[in-house]
């Protein structure tokens, strides 16, 4: 079963704008992660947020987590052409933290 669901499925923005992607999940979790995938390649880990954290920053990335709503958002500020990729959220399960489930992803396209 799909744990995370990203929204929107696809997003196109102008270079320099901010991009926001959302993720909803179903069960209680220990951690939520965001990954990036460039076309036809493997995924690369971006950032992890733990269930007791509400916000985390890494460079141009900002992640929020609302465990009461079972949702997370990923904000990429000052987007660049190189940010064009698919972005996935991934969650574990509070009872089974070695099983990592991914959502369907958001395809982000940065327009020049």
């Amino acid at each position, binding site marked *: 079963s799909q744990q995370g669901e990203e929204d929107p499925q696809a997003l196109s923005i102008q270079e320099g704008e901010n991009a926001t992607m959302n993720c909803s999940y179903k069960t209680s979790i220990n951690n939520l*992660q965001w990954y990036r995938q460039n076309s036809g390649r493997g995924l690369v*880990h971006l950032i992890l947020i733990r269930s007791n954290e509400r916000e985390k920053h890494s460079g141009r990335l900002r992640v929020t987590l609302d465990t009461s709503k079972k949702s997370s958002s990923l904000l990429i500020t000052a987007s660049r052409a190189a940010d064009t990729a698919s972005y996935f959220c991934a969650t574990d399960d509070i009872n089974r933290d*070695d*099983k*990592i489930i991914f959502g*369907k992803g958001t395809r982000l396209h940065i327009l020049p």
Partner: protein
Amino acid sequence: DVKVTQSSRYLVKRTGEKVFLECVQDMDHENMFWYRQDPGLGLRLIYFSYDVKMKEKGDIPEGYSVSREKKERFSLILESASTNQTSMYLCASSFPWDTGANVLTFGAGSRLTVL
């Protein structure tokens, strides 16, 4: 840096063939995973392993089996390939004890076409 290597980048097989997808990681990671990725469906977990000779079913294990005889190697086996197993297969590994979480390192993927 941890490296996860998938033996074949592209494979073409015929229906009914037995297919082996190999994955090797070089950093002594405990956990290893196999996912398949299909358009519109995202990544779906097939099998994972948290130790040598240990395996657990993911969400879509039907038609697949796995082998983990050595810590660094996790093989995905399609006993009798079918056309609906045409997909991108992604292997990943993790070592949760340093971060307290399963941060996955992925291989580049193996694109399998079953004719």
